[in-house]
Every structure is written in structure tokens, then in C-alpha cells.
């Protein structure tokens, strides 16, 4: 049966910058109900809030790669700071529990609960930033289908999310009109499901 070789992949990470500097990162208010992983492509929805990339919008569809996980917000941007000088506006926690006596709006926050500031932190997919992800093939059937080789450098492929944890891999099965990345290196060599370094295609970048 044709399928990806791995059921679980790894987060996309930014590994190098052509200018030898720190990658350009940004934070934007997040859309409601997002539960994406850290290290996945994200995009702005029609209202301008960050959501996980839909996997199909290949033209101007990718805002960046998330550096934070989806906050599962009750409403878009909930808790984001009231800029320019205001603080975080919500509970600043991803979870609260129980009830507060006689204060229906009050919340209990367990110490150590991760913070939620209503925004997604992401690395911009500009050409200077080189990212790394695992190589796979959603329609593969033999090892050669799932193995990147020297011949793949310079090739343009798409990204596909695995169904287990939602991590994206460079998908050899997506080419041509479905491509969003270009492979630039095999940092660990050629072997089954080896990681590949890539840049995003300029046509795929949502906000230049």
C-alpha cells in the first residue's frame, strides 16, 4: 500500500541563515481553536489571524514556521497584549481550573501552567532562512521512494502533515504545482527518511 514510511515525523526547524545571523522571527495574534504543533507551517487566515497552514494553498500560503504551539484560544487573539504599552490581557495561562467563590469570571491557574499571550511566534520563510525536515513520500512503496538522494538537491517538493501528531515532512510525492520548498542540502547524507535542508519557494511566501 502506497504511503509515507513514517507515521510520526519531526518538527520543522530553522537550521541556518545565509547571512549568518539570527533568523527573523515575528509574533502575530492567533486564530481561535488552533492546536498545531511547534515547528509546523502556519498562515494568516482571511481575518489576519495565525492558523496552521491548510496544506493546499501553495501560492502565497505560508506565513512561517511556528516556534510555539497552538494555544486553543476561545476567540481569535484572546489575551494578546494591548499594544503599544499594555500588558497581556487574558489569564496568561493555557489552562485554568475549577471555580472561584462568588467570582464567576475569576480563574485558578496552576503554578507552572504554560503561558498564553494570544500570539503565535514564528520564523519567517524568507530565502535567507534554511529549514530542516524529514524526507518522506506519501505515495511511496519501496525504500527508494522514501530516501532523499543527491539528485533531490534543487528539486521542488511539497509539505504534508502526518496524521499522528501533525508534523510536516518534505513530501516527494508533491511536485510541480504542489511544491512549496526547494531542497538545498542533505546535511546527514542519504539514507531512509533522512533530514533534508530546504528553503521555501518565494511563490509560497504569504507575507514577503
Amino acid at each position, binding site marked *: 500500500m502506497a504511503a509515507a514510511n513514517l507515521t510520526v515525523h519531526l518538527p520543522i526547524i530553522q537550521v541556518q541563515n545565509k547571512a549568518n545571523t539570527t533568523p527573523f522571527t515575528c509574533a502575530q495574534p492567533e486564530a481561535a481553536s488552533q492546536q498545531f504543533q511547534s515547528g509546523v507551517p502556519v498562515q494568516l487566515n482571511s481575518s489576519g489571524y495565525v492558523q496552521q497552514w491548510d496544506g493546499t494553498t501553495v501560492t502565497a500560503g505560508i506565513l512561517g514556521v511556528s516556534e510555539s504551539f497552538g494555544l486553543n484560544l476561545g476567540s481569535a487573539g484572546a489575551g494578546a*497584549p*494591548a499594544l*503599544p*504599552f*499594555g*500588558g*497581556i*490581557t487574558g*489569564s*496568561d*495561562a493555557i489552562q*485554568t481550573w475549577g471555580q*472561584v*467563590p*462568588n*467570582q*464567576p*469570571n*475569576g*480563574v*485558578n*491557574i496552576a*503554578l507552572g501552567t504554560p*503561558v498564553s*499571550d494570544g500570539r503565535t511566534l514564528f520564523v519567517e520563510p524568507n530565502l535567507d532562512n534554511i529549514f530542516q525536515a524529514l524526507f518522506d513520500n506519501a505515495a511511496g512503496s519501496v525504500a527508494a521512494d522514501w530516501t532523499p538522494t543527491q539528485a533531490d538537491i534543487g528539486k521542488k517538493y511539497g509539505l504534508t502533515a502526518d496524521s499522528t501528531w501533525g508534523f510536516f515532512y518534505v513530501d516527494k510525492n508533491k511536485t510541480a504545482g504542489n511544491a512549496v520548498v526547494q531542497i538545498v542540502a542533505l546535511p546527514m547524507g542519504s539514507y531512509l527518511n533522512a533530514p533534508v535542508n530546504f528553503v521555501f519557494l518565494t511563490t509560497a511566501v504569504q507575507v514577503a
Partner: protein
Amino acid sequence: MPQVRAKFAQLMQPGLRKIYSDFLDSSLKASDYPKVFNEMDSDSQYEQFLEMAGISALQEKPEDASTAYVEMKQGASKRIEPLTYSLGMRTSKELYDDDKYGLVGKKGPTLLARSAAFTQEMIAWNVFNLGFTSAVTTFDCNPLFYNQHALLGGAQATQLAPGAAGVISAAGTWPNRPPVDIDFSVAGLQLATNYAARMVDNMGFPIRLKWQHLITPPELRFLVREILGSPGKPYTGDNTINSLLPEDYKNLEVPWLNSPSAWFLVAEKQDHSLTVIHREKPSTDFDDDFDTDAIKQKTRLRMAAACPRWQGVFGTQGP
């Protein structure tokens, strides 16, 4: 954008009699927020606070009856996370060297200090500016200045609180803002004074609060002088004393308030929770760019301001 000589041609030769610079006053004359806010240092991503209520009043016990046992009430949590603010300047080495007046680049630290001072004031005073909205909330998750703050003791607390009926607009709640905003006036100040005298804790016990600072925008300066500066009752021909004078309110006029009509009263520091959290005091750093020789200067700070408890402060938006 880098600062280069073409943008500062007037500084390339000596001869200017005087340069009027915005940034001669590096500290913006004085810092206002420390006069009102409590300050604390932090070494964590966030600081978390918890409110606890006491217990209610004693209950009458008939002869030989057993004692009633009650419980304290754990209130809500409030988490405050300092945000990072930073700003930098980049000046070409040529401009840095050729500036005959030592302004561009060499004055970078002064400029950055001034920007940091302004930013800190705005972060702190935005607690007041945004205190009528959900951007600044207290333990009960209502706006800081609100007419119906929920008491942990609920309706039992307002049932117990002496004089509650004349102050509250809903059982189980207590105001630190009038139900209808009131402009700065004798009547307004008297109302606010009564609010302090009647203010209670979460179980409805009077806390005998007294306002210390009257915080106003510049637009109210003359009204403040008329109302607090008159030995007799303001705006009347009667031979009546100005009954507000014994309150000894200290007016703090600040330019950081956005509203020209909102005014506030704040108790002594130990009686309110207006707090500035310093995660990182302003720090300036410098570096030279190896390739261009440009001078880079930057300042950063991490800070938050909040007021988890509503007791101890009063605010109204005026007319």
C-alpha cells in the same frame, strides 16, 4: 535604517550657534510612576499572585450550643508576565567621526535612556489609561475601575457590610467607580471620599481606607486648584469651610494620562496593589559592525505593570 552623513549635513561643519535638541533632558525631568506604584524585581518569566479572603463575623451562640466553624476562601489567581521592549540605533562610522557637535551616535545613550524612561512611564500609567477596559483586570477578572467588583464573600459580605445599601448597586459586589461617571467636582470628590471610607474587604469588613494621591491630567489643573485651594467651600458665597481640605489629598498631575477628564484617587502604597514588575531594568549595549564599522547601540528592558486588587484605587472617566 542606518544614520549616514547625507541625512545630517548641518552637523558636518562647526559654526552653529546653538542646537535645540529634544533630548537634553535625558530623564524626562522626573519619573512619576515610582511615586504611586509599588515596585518589585523578578527573576522569572512571570509572577503569579493569589487572593485570599478572611472569614466572616462571629455568630451569636446560645447557651451551651456548639461553636460554628467556618472556612477561609481561596480566591482567584492573577499572573503578570513582563514584556520585552527594545530599541536600537545604527550610525555609520563616518558620521560618528565627522559629526562636529557630537550629537548623532555619541548622544545615542542619552536618546535611548530617554526612550526607555518614556516607555516605562507609559507601561505603568496605562494601568490607569486602560483601567476602564478588559485590558487591565483585577482578581475578579473585571476592569480595574468597575462598579460591581465581585466579593469573594458574595451577597453575605454586602449583607454584613455597614452602609452597603448606600454604596453598592448589586448584592455581593462593591464599586471603585461610580455607576455613572462623574466629572471632577466638589460633589465628585466627596463621593470618592465616601467610597474610601466605606470600602470593604472581600468579607464585607470596612478597611478604613484613606486616599493619598489625587491623580489628574493637566486639563484639570485649574479645577483642582479651585477645589482644593480654596479655604472656603468652593463656588459658594457662604461662610462655610472647605470640608475637603482636612482630607489632605496630594495632587499628582501627570502627563501620561490619555483622557483629559478621567481622574483617580489612590491610597498609600501599602493599601493598594498597583505594582510595577521589573524583570530587567533598562540596559544599554554597544557593538561595532565588523564589515561596515557602523556603531550599533541598543537599549532593552523587561517590565509589566498591573493592579491585581481593586481595593485602594478609585477611578472615573469624568463627563
